[in-house]
């Protein structure tokens, strides 16, 4: 019991890798941040990694190492078999865990620090990416990045919210929380795309627009409103994908699109579960209840016809196999883009407006 506490307490938060872990970095599944509900899986994963390391050492030295001998009791002769058995167990556990994630657990997966973020997707999905800076009025907001690129040979404009992947980049990108300049940059790039007939791919991953004094002084509300207006006004296809967290007005500002895709474990909501809990339950600790009530999962939103497609994530979430999720998203984006590019400019505009005007009308009317 005591041991468990010692081992698991530090794992509740993002733990810095120790030297041993660093040596194992090349191995897959080495997650630095461990979600509470994944502990049992993580334990198995660590065992597998330890076994692999030992197997590696053994094959190098040709005999049992000192360390291996110390653990001799639990170390099977045929480690390959044991590793396979454990891997199978991990896969089974992950499958049942991820098939039954609660909305609150999904929120945690969607915010997982190791989850691929916007720039990682752009790099993997696109070629020739040329970022374009600034709103031409005040600043270059790093929370919203955008630029010209090629996606499967097609010239496109990509725009997305970047959260950053370590402390330095998180600060640089303001944790994905854009200020008015960010939305004004997005507006500028959408206008540019419209002028050169470039389809727009947006990637949503933000906890929300930044709530700050300067942001308010420079018209945060107006910037978001104009960004929504611009989305609804352009004559080129817009495909939005919620890749992580779709936080309220900050998200819809770049997601009023012809098609809205959503990764399997992403969330999209009018307010964060914590925020909702602190207002309606008057207690932030009811975040799990709020997450249930808000219907913020991709599956719920598809049911409400607010999103169009769910893009499947690899077993155990996008952070366990970024390459697989990139491939799935690439295919889904390609299909969506092909469909929308068959419409002309007026048709695209009309489709977008009808789509949003129709939302909620299909849910049945109160007596």
């Amino acid at each position: 019991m005591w041991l468990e506490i010692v081992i698991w307490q530090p794992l509740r938060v993002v733990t810095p890798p120790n030297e041993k872990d660093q040596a194992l970095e090349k191995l897959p599944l080495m997650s630095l941040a461990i979600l509470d509900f994944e502990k049992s899986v993580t334990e198995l994963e660590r065992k597998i990694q330890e076994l692999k390391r030992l197997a590696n050492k053994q094959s190098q030295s040709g005999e049992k190492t000192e360390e291996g001998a110390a653990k001799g009791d639990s170390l099977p002769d045929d480690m390959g078999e044991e590793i396979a058995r454990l891997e199978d167990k991990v896969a089974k556990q992950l499958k049942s865990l991820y098939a039954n994630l609660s909305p609150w657990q999904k929120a945690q997966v969607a915010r997982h620090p190791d989850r691929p973020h916007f720039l990682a997707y752009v790099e993997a999905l696109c070629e020739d990416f040329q970022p374009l800076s600034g709103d031409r009025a005040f600043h270059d907001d790093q929370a919203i990045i955008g630029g010209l690129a090629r996606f499967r040979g097609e010239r496109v404009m990509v725009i997305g919210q970047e959260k950053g992947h370590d402390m330095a980049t998180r600060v640089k990108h303001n944790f994905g929380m854009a200020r008015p300049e960010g939305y004004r940059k997005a507006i500028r790039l959408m206008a540019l795309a419209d002028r050169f007939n470039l389809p727009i791919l947006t990637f949503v991953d933000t906890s929300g627009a930044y709530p700050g004094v300067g942001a308010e002084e420079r018209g945060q509300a107006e910037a978001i409103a104009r960004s929504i207006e611009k989305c609804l006004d352009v004559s080129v296809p817009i495909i939005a994908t919620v890749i992580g967290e779709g936080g309220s007005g900050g998200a819809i500002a770049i997601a009023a699109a012809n098609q809205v895709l959503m990764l399997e474990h992403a969330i999209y909501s009018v307010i964060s579960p914590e925020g909702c809990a602190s207002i309606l339950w008057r207690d932030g600790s009811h975040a799990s209840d709020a997450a249930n009530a808000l219907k913020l999962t991709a599956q719920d939103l598809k049911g409400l016809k607010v999103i169009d497609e769910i893009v499947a994530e690899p077993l155990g979430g996008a952070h366990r196999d970024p390459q697989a999720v990139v491939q799935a998203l690439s295919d889904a984006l390609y299909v969506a883009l092909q469909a929308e590019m068959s419409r002309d400019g007026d048709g695209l505009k009309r489709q977008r407006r009808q789509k949003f005007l129709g939302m909620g009308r299909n849910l049945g009317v109160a007596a």
Partner: protein
Amino acid sequence: MSWLTDYVRPRIPGFSAKKKEVPDDLWTSCPSCQQMIYAPLLSETHRCCPHCEHHMRMPMLERFALLFDDGQFERIDIPSVAADPLKFKDLKRYGDRLKDAQTKTGEKDSLGAAHGLMGGREVVVAIMNFAFMGGSMGMAMGETFVKAAEKAIEAKAPFIIFTASGGARMQEGILSLMQMPRTTVALQMVKEAGLPYLVVLTDPTTGGVSASFAMLGDLTLAEPGAQIGFAGKRVIKQTTGEDLPDGFQTAEFLQERGIIDVVVARKDMKDKLVQLLSLLLGDALLELPSPEEVPGERLPDVAAEEGSQDATSDDAATEAKDA
């Protein structure tokens, strides 16, 4: 028992009970300057403090009456929408909260719309009712907004909205967020029909409402002292630890920073709107082509309208382009 106890004493509790009623009904204190105000006076001053001119929140129907000529207007029906689509329950069922608000206010939801004459010109006015669940934006509000916009297009009338809202209605989840693009589509249709869309921001206008249709007016007016912003003051303080400057998020603060056009006192509001519409559109009533004739097309500007009374809409459009 003397005549004194018999006669006077019973009167005392009666007298004091009556006296207790008086402050409740007849006297109120100004939330800004704390001075006592004789309540009946407030309807004369349109709910502005006679001492410091602080603009208190105004009931929706009073505002309609203040704006339309002779207080005459026709309400636009509020369309029915799916009630409680998420079956939302926090400490209380959303369905119950909704019913309570309906009973309390006598309204179906937080946005009311009406049309009628203002300064002799047909206008459509929508007013948000802060008394109804904090003026929160849900499907009913979005649908009413769309209906009012359609009425404006049909009647070729300017569309004016008075905002007052804490933001999205959480109990409708993502569907409340979707009212941001929905209302934007509706106001784009008004603008594309060549009609003015005017916004009057009143206290308070925040959150999803401020970040959509409230900030997309051709002209943006505000009442003095109204709190207007995206994020709440408490959230900003908690998140950033920054000190908020004096007058932060007030109408005057926003005007100074170039975010809104003009701050107008409530008593002058109707005259100002009439004046602005007349400056935008001229004194004559608009002669515009019906929306069916020009789906999604930009319409000729107002200057080109003059002298083209007999011309068809297409001719007018051509003239405008040639000019």
